C-alpha cells in the first residue's frame, strides 16, 4: 500500500480574505469621498456638463488610439507597447509639416483647410508605415515561436526607440522647418493655434469649442470608416477571420502576414491622426506624451473588451469621461492612478471587458 497521506488541509482562503478586505477598505474609506464627489457634481450641473463635454473630446482621441491596440491584439495577441508612442510621433510629424507649410493662425481658411487635410493624411500615412515596418522587421520574426514574451519585450524596446526619436526630433532645426522645433529636446513644442477656439455653445454657460467639434468630428468619421471597413469589406473580413483562427484563415487562402500588416497599418494611421488632432487641440507636443495616452487608451481597449472594435470605441468614450471627471473632481495628479486602478480592476475581476468574449484570458 502506498504511504497514506495526511488529509490535505483546506488552507487559508487568501483570495476570499483579500476580496473581503478590499470591500471593507472601500466601504470605510472611499464611500464618503465618493458621496462628496457626487454632491459636488450635482451642485454645479454646468460644470458637470462642461466636464462631460471635455470627456467627449478626450474619448474621441483615446478611442482612436485604443482601436490600434485592439486591432493588433485581436489579430496577433500582442500588446503593442509602442503604440502610444506612435501617437506622439504623429503629433511631431504633423507639427513638422505645419512648419513646412508655414501654417499660422493668420493663414486664410481657403489654404489652411485643405493643407490641414493634407497634413492629416500625410501623418496617418507616416505612422501607418512606421507601424507596419516595425511589425515586418521586429514582431514578425518573433511570431512563429511559442512565447509571447519576446514580442512584448521587443515592443517595449521599440517604444523606447520611438521616444528617443521624438526626443531627437525636437532638436531638428533644419531651415525648411521654420523653427517649429526648439533647442531643448525635452521641452514641449508648441503648435500654432490652427483650430478656431470659438465657443459654439456660447451663452449656455457650457463650453464646446469649434476645435472640440473638429476633434470629435474627425474622430467619428475615422472610426466610422474603420468600422465599415472591418465589417463590410473583404479585407476587413479577412482580418476578423485571421483574428479568430489564424491557421484556418491561412487554409482559406488568406495571406496572413499581409492581413496582420493591415491591422498594424490601420491602427498606426488612427494613432497618428489622434496625435495630430490632440497636438493642434492642446497646442503642445512632448516626447513622452505617448505614455499617458497609451496607458489610457490601453485601459479603454481592455475596458471595452480587448479585440472588440466597438468595445474600443465605447471604452474610449468611458475612459475619456472618467479622466475628465477625475481631473476636475479629484485632481489631475491622481488621474493616471485612477485610470490604472480601473485597468487592474478589470483585468482581475472581468478580463473580458464589457463587450468582449473569451479571447482575453485563459488559464
Amino acid at each position, binding site marked *: 500500500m*502506498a*504511504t497514506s*497521506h495526511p488529509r*490535505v488541509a483546506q488552507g487559508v482562503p487568501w483570495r476570499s480574505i483579500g476580496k473581503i478586505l478590499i470591500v471593507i477598505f472601500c466601504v470605510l474609506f472611499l464611500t464618503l469621498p465618493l458621496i462628496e464627489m457626487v454632491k459636488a457634481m450635482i451642485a454645479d450641473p454646468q460644470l458637470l456638463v462642461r466636464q462631460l463635454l471635455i470627456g467627449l473630446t478626450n474619448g474621441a482621441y483615446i478611442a482612436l488610439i485604443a482601436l490600434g491596440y485592439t486591432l493588433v491584439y485581436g489579430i496577433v495577441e500582442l500588446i503593442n507597447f509602442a503604440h502610444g508612442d506612435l501617437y506622439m510621433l504623429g503629433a511631431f510629424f504633423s507639427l513638422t509639416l505645419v512648419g513646412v507649410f508655414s501654417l499660422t493662425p493668420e493663414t486664410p481658411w481657403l489654404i489652411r483647410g485643405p493643407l490641414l487635410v493634407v497634413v492629416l493624411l500625410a501623418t496617418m500615412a507616416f505612422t501607418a508605415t512606421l507601424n507596419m515596418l516595425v511589425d515586418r522587421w521586429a514582431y514578425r520574426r518573433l511570431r512563429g515561436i511559442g512565447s509571447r514574451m519576446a514580442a512584448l519585450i521587443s515592443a517595449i524596446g521599440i517604444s523606447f526607440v520611438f521616444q528617443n526619436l521624438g526626443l531627437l526630433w525636437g532638436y531638428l532645426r533644419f531651415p525648411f522647418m521654420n523653427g517649429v522645433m526648439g533647442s531643448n529636446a525635452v521641452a514641449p513644442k508648441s503648435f500654432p493655434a490652427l483650430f478656431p477656439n470659438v465657443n459654439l455653445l456660447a451663452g449656455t454657460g457650457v463650453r464646446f469649442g469649434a476645435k472640440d467639434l473638429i476633434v470629435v468630428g474627425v474622430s467619428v468619421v475615422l472610426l466610422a470608416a474603420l468600422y465599415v471597413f472591418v465589417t463590410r469589406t473583404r479585407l476587413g473580413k479577412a482580418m476578423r477571420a485571421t483574428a479568430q483562427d489564424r491557421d484556418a484563415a491561412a487554409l482559406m487562402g488568406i495571406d496572413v502576414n499581409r492581413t496582420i500588416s493591415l491591422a498594424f497599418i490601420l491602427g498606426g494611421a488612427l494613432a497618428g491622426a489622434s496625435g495630430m488632432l490632440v497636438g493642434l487641440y492642446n497646442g503642445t507636443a512632448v516626447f513622452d506624451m505617448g505614455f499617458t495616452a497609451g496607458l489610457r487608451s490601453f485601459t479603454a481597449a481592455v475596458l471595452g473588451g480587448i479585440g472588440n472594435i466597438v468595445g474600443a470605441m465605447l471604452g474610449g468614450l468611458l475612459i475619456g469621461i472618467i479622466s475628465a471627471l477625475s481631473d476636475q473632481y479629484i485632481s489631475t495628479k491622481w488621474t493616471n492612478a485612477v485610470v490604472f486602478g480601473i485597468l487592474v480592476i478589470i483585468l482581475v475581476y472581468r478580463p473580458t471587458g464589457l463587450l468582449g468574449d473569451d479571447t482575453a484570458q485563459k*488559464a
Partner: protein
Amino acid sequence: MTNILETRGLTKRFGGLTAVDSVDFSVATGSITSLIGPNGAGKTTFFNTVTGLYTPTSGTIAFAGRSLVGLKPHEVTAAGIGRTFQNIRLFGNMTAVENVMVGMHSRMHANVLGILAHSARVQHEEATARAKAHALLDAVGLPAQRADDLSKNLPYGDQRRLEIARALATDPELLLLDEPTAGMNPQETAELTQLIRRIRDERAITILLIEHDMKLVMEISESITVLDRGAKIAAGLPHEIRSNEQVIEAYLGRGAASMAHAHARNGGEPT
C-alpha cells in the same frame, strides 16, 4: 473491493459543448483500469476535471473517501493522484533528474528559511530526494547516463518514461496515464506494459489508463470503461467490451457491429 476513485454524474460543459456528460465511473483500488473511446470522446477532459484543472459543471468526484470537487490541481496531487499528459509536458530545460525532483515538491518540506540557512534537515532532504530521483529513473528504465541530460534532448521513448517517473515522484496512490504509449513502437510498448504492471504490483499503485492501443488495453486491463461523445457507453471486462456493439460502432461507425458479427461468423478474428 473498494473503489479508490468514484465519480457520479460528472459533467463538464464549455459554453455550448458538453465534453463530459454525466459520467458514473469507478476505479477499483489496486486495479489497472482503462478508459477508452474514439478521439474527442472526452477522456482527457475527464482526467483534467478529476485532477482539478477544470471545475466540474456538476457531479461528484470521490477519491479515497474525500471529495475532489473544488480542489486546485496541486491539492489533488498532494491528495495522492499523479498524472502524465497526452502531449508530453516535461520541463524541457530541466534535466531528467530535476524533472523528477520537481515531482517530489509536495512531499518535501524545505521552506525559505531552511533553504537560506542551508540547515542540516534541508541538506538531508535534498540528498535523499536526489537519490530517490535516480532510483525512480532507474525503475522506469531511463539509462543512467541520461539522467543529467536536458529533458528536451531526450529521445521520445525516454521522455515518456521520464514523465512516468515524475508522476511516480509525487508518491501517488492513483496514477493517471494519458496515452502513455502514443508514438511508441511495439517493443517500447511491450516494455511499457511490463513497467505498468510492475508499478502496480511492486508499489501498490492503482493505475488508470487512457489508451488507443487496443492490444495493450485488452492485455493489461482488468476493467475497461468506454466514453463516446462525453458519455459512458460501456464498462466491464475486456472480453465484454470487445464484443460490445455500441463500442464497435462508436469506433467504426454505424453498421460496423453487424459487419463484425458477420466477419466472426465466417471464422475470422475481429481485430
